[in-house]
């Protein structure tokens, strides 16, 4: 494996079972992400891209296959270690922001730090954490909205808050699940711009799931999931783990339909 490979997955399978009906969602996915890369995962809804992200983010366990992070296998870790990993190494941004409605924006941002500290250590470090949260809120442009509840914020503001929350733990890897899915075009573009800055300036590795190709084009590399498989575009060069220009995906919009077709055939 390439030395700069940050995280990679081999032959991932995931099947959702409900009663007697089992629905295979991932059918042997292989993928890699390099350190400092901004990778986007595209695919139609139901193609398994969110599931892939949940597996990579150790929110869920694969039925088969392996996931390595920094050369260590993480899919079979104990619950404690996975919790620790999510809290210390990963950051999450969701389509529906997923802020806690009872907490103010600032408190929401501080939550990951609170999770990792006991009451007593919080008494010691709370003010440092608070300062960092304020800095991050200012960085995402919400210095004036810190003490508002999520319901008092606009969609874009909520997503910025969520980004600040994802960043507060200094994650090495940021997972963004349809971060613009619930926002209007302009706001969505702003959010992606923000992510890109984070990637470029702070060197945060980002895996973004989206179905919006225009947004995906702004990233280093695109993986397309079709019916539980990674569809490797023919244009993809062997130096796949390096930075691939997104303009090599010019023919993607046509593939959308194709993927729908494939899904229908696969009976998903």
């Amino acid at each position, binding site marked *: 494996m390439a030395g700069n490979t940050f995280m990679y997955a081999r032959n991932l399978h995931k099947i959702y079972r409900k009663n007697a009906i089992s629905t295979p969602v991932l059918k042997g996915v292989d993928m890699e992400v390099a350190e400092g890369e901004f990778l986007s995962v595209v695919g139609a809804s139901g193609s398994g891209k969110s599931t892939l992200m949940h597996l990579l*983010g150790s929110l869920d366990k694969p039925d088969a296959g392996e996931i390595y992070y920094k050369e260590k296998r993480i899919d079979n870790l104990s619950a404690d270690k996975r919790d620790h990993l999510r809290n*210390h190494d990963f950051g999450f941004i*969701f389509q529906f922001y997923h802020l806690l409605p009872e907490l103010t924006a600032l408190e929401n941002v501080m939550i990951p730090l609170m*999770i990792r500290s*006991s*009451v007593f250590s919080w008494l010691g470090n709370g003010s440092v954490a608070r300062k960092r949260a304020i800095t991050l809120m200012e960085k995402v442009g919400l210095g004036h909205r810190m003490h508002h509840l999520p319901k008092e914020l606009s969609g874009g503001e909520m997503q910025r808050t969520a980004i600040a929350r994802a960043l507060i733990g200094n994650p090495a890897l940021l997972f963004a699940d349809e971060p613009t899915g619930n926002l209007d075009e302009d706001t969505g573009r702003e959010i992606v711009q923000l992510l890109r800055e984070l990637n470029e300036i702070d060197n945060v590795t980002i895996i973004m799931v989206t179905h919006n190709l225009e947004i995906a084009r702004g990233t280093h590399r695109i993986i397309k999931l079709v019916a539980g498989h990674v569809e490797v575009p023919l244009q993809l060069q062997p130096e796949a783990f390096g930075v691939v220009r997104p303009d090599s995906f010019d023919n993607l919009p046509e593939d959308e339909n194709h993927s729908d077709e494939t899904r229908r055939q696969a009976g998903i």
Partner: protein
Amino acid sequence: MYKLLLCWKYLRTRYLAMVCIVSVMLGVATLIVVNSVMGGFSTKLKERLHGLLSDVVLEAYDYDGFTDAPSKMALIRNDPFLSNEVDAMTATLEIFAMLQFNFREVPFTRPVRIIGIEPEGRKAVGGFAEHLVNPKNHEKPTFNLDETARERFMIRRASRGVDFPGPREAPNLNEPPPPDPPPSKPHEPQGVILGYAIAHYRDRNAPADLPNKDVRTLEPGDEVVITTVSGAKMSPVFDRFVVSDYFKSEMSEYDSNYVFMPIEHLQKLRTMEDRVTSIQIKLKDYNKAPKVVARLRELFANAPLEVQTWEQKQGAVLAAIRVEKGILNILLFLIIAVAGFGILAIFSMIVVEKTRDIGILKALGASNGGILTIFIGYGFLLGLVGAGLGTIIGLEITVHINDIEKFIANVTGQDIFPRDVYYFDKIPTDINIFSVFLVNLGSIGIAVLFSILPALRASMLHPVRALRYE
């Protein structure tokens, strides 16, 4: 840290949870009020049961009694251990008897118990002088008539025709009184102190606003005849007595049965010389009663005497009170158990409502144990707040229970606490800090217990499924 913050936020923002708090609060308040009132009743009842009985009683097995009480008392006084523990002692002679008197020209007969006492000594043992109706008798109890009683006695005697047959009565009493009142002392019968309920009855038809509904059948100065049995021969003896005062302990068993008279007079009447039936002992420290009883039993091992504390004598009644309180407490605790089910239901709802938040927390790295702690802590907090408020309300109600009773009685016109039933002039309460503490502990415990199940469910939620939950 996040657990504390979220517990606090949930407590402040979930109005549904207020229902839990209110139910715990009501349960705790009820338990405290009922416990305090029950405790008040039982303390008061115990006080009264204790009333006449001294701390430790040395008793003969039969009505014949035993001789030489002074030497027995001297023996106790000379014992190195007992002399330090005993505060006061007095000998009494107890016997059943029949009391006859005329009221509104109708003769009445009642069964009574006569207790022969030495008034000063009996006062020292306690539970006697303070219950006498005539306040002059509190300081120095006596069987002598006071001025008004003597006057009434003289008038009654002078104006009396034939009342009930009195064999000791001189036949010439029907003659008109002599112009100068004769020196009353030699002719005056012995004074006795009657139980209050013997000399009074309650007029059930009296108007409700009348403060005292008791009708007096015997005034101080009225004559009564007491018939009892003589000592050894068991033949009937009787004598004429005059009422000097009443004994009102508010314990109907005593007030309606007991008649006190000087012990020497009773001994003479029953031809028992120096025999007594019991020695009443008051201790300096009641906590040492078991040791004193043991020592006394040792000391009088060969005498036909029984040694008991007052509690042993009243064992059955005290046990009944204890059992009653215990059962009531169990029943009332079911109230809090009901509140517990309320918590269970509402918590389950909150967990469902918070499913997505639980998913978020897990995604951000919160452990299952952390989520469990949030919800159990939340239950604990609800219990704590509910119990705290309940304690405040319960104590407030307990302290002001008589005002509340008066208010409700005024509003509804219904007497809630008929004072004549218990002879209490107000509802007695006794707040036991320990039981308040136990009630609090129990209710908080139940709140925590019932939040475990929903908390477990919350902690077991799968993060992805929880996140996707709509």
